[in-house]
């Protein structure tokens, strides 16, 4: 039996992991944390099957969603900077939100979308949505429905957000950086009509917004190319307006050089960045709810890496 053999071979490792879990429990760590350490440290040793890893990760993601631990989230400077910049803008400022992602990365970027849009609406900023990705259009419509129609307009019937006056949807346009570059010169040249088919010149809000120079802040929701990088090149470096964004965690590290260089005002990296923005706006939503699961899953993966390495070195020593 594999299990019996593994118990005898890795008995020291199993005992060490159980002791570590007991110590964490004695120090007052949340119950789920020390259970995670014990289970993630022992079960894959006993049953070395990759599917066991999948199963454990699934368990450590689902458990905190069912039983939240409410771990605290620190606010990083890059998220705080973006929040502060939106706060500093005068009410009625124009925010361009570019939905450059699709449903495949929705779990990461949609919470950031909602948190940012909620902040803009509360500050009374006007919003122009557009998409360099074809599937981004429906996500823009969904975000407006969730934040403006179902939330703000229901809670504030005396001061509703009205299409054409406070927000406008622009359709998808192919071309990536070419579109961004053309928008810098003229919106109407690229978008003769909005998503509803109304000529842009007939939309009251767009009368004073002829090109990117009339935008106060560009917010790119990026899951690849074209995306935030194109907006940095055009809006920040060419036109000279503030650019912030939310990127999938995979691509977030690529944008830190731009933050350091001041080409990017702020950045929400993955679900963590979204949860920070939710905390700043004061409306905890799905990103905040997911942070416990994220933390516990990361802890489990760290344990897997440690245990895997220890097993590797024990095996090598045994062979020698």
């Amino acid at each position, binding site marked *: 039996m594999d299990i019996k053999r593994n118990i005898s071979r890795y008995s020291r490792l199993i005992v060490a992991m159980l002791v570590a879990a007991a110590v964490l429990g004695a120090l007052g760590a949340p119950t789920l944390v020390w259970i995670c350490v014990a289970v993630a440290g022992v079960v894959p040793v006993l049953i070395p099957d990759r*599917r066991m890893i*999948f199963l454990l*990760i*699934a368990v450590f*993601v*689902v458990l905190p*969603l*069912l039983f939240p631990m409410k771990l605290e989230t620190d606010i990083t400077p890059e998220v705080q900077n973006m929040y502060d910049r939106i706060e500093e803008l005068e009410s009625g400022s124009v925010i361009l939100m570019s939905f450059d992602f*699709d449903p495949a*990365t*929705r*779990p*990461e970027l949609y919470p950031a979308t909602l948190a940012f849009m909620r902040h803009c609406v509360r500050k009374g900023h006007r919003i122009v949505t557009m998409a360099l990705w*074809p*599937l981004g*259009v*429906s996500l823009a419509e969904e975000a407006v429905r969730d934040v403006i129609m179902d939330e703000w307009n229901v809670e504030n019937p005396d001061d509703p957000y009205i299409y054409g006056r406070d927000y406008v949807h622009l*359709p*998808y*346009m*192919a071309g990536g*950086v*070419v579109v961004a*570059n053309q928008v810098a010169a003229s919106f109407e040249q690229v978008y*003769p*009509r909005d*998503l509803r*088919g109304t000529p842009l010149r007939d939309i009251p809000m767009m009368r004073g917004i002829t090109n990117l120079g009339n935008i106060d802040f560009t917010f790119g929701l990026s899951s690849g190319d074209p995306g935030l*990088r194109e907006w*940095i*090149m*055009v809006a*920040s*470096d*060419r036109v000279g307006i503030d650019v912030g964004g939310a990127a*999938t*965690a*995979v691509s*977030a*590290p690529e944008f830190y*050089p*731009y933050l*350091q*260089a*001041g*080409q990017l005002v702020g950045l929400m*990296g*993955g*679900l*963590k960045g979204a949860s920070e923005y939710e905390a700043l706006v004061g409306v905890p939503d*799905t990103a905040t*709810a*997911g942070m416990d*699961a*994220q933390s516990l*899953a*990361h802890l489990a*993966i760290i344990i897997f890496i440690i245990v895997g390495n220890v097993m590797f070195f024990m095996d090598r020593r045994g062979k020698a």
Partner: protein
Amino acid sequence: MQELATQDLVGLWIAAILTLFIFSFLYKDNPLYKFAEHMFVGVSAGYILVRTWFDILMPMLFQRIWIPGVRELTVESLMVFIPAALAIMMLMRLVPSAGWISRWPLAFMMGVTSGLYLVMYLQTNAIEQIRATMVPFAVAENDWLHIATYLFPVLAVVIVLLVVMILIRERIEVLYRKWNIIFPLYLIVAGIVLLYFIAIHRTPEGVALIENQSFNNVILFVGVVSGLVYFFFSKAHTGAFGVTARIGIYFLMMAFGASFGYTIMARISLLIGRSQFLLDEWGGDAIVQTPVWMSILLILGLLAVIVMAAIKTRHDESH
């Protein structure tokens, strides 16, 4: 609890079942996973086609182009013929004998994109990034010290020049034989480090030094220089050059580690997203509100798909 319409309930059930089909791949590859995967690709392609038709082709081409008797002749309505012709030329790829025609619009697209990127990409990713690495080693809230400390990057440039001299030493062989230039380089680096610590610890009264920022800037400088040295392959990585390259490797490994950590976070976030959907939207509202007749239909439908998948698996295995 939010009241769900019938079409929303059906949508939630379909989404939940397809999610579970996709998760079934974790056990092993199977027809249910393939079915969901193909459906995702097909639906996405169909959606993109519809969006492209209504958002681009209709407003940008068909509603602008000159059609006798329908739209009057203007410069704009004639200009649209150019992209229309390029688009048709692109479709020539479907005709093997005329496939070469599609190279013309491709060349046009590549030319335009290259022209745009050449300037903007260089500005954003080279010039701005180089400018951002020219930072003072000691940052103070007071302006005069801030300006004075720009002397440090000047010294840094001297170091870089010295390194370049070492690299092209074959060409200045005489000079190199006369003095071992590595030695003065060590001295200058040691001098700069010494000056840096003096600046940090012996600031004049009333000067508020931002130590974190100063330290970050030093790290940035070391990381950039050593990272660049690592990618210089025209000289063997030995001696002082090798040590610098090794430091560069450590910086690169840290960058890769950060990327790996973020990648793990991304994958877990996607799992969290689907778990929240299954637990909250489907498990919370949809299951409770699903009428009995719909449950029976869904279960029968699901069974039919599973049976078909099993038959296909058996058929594939027998062949």
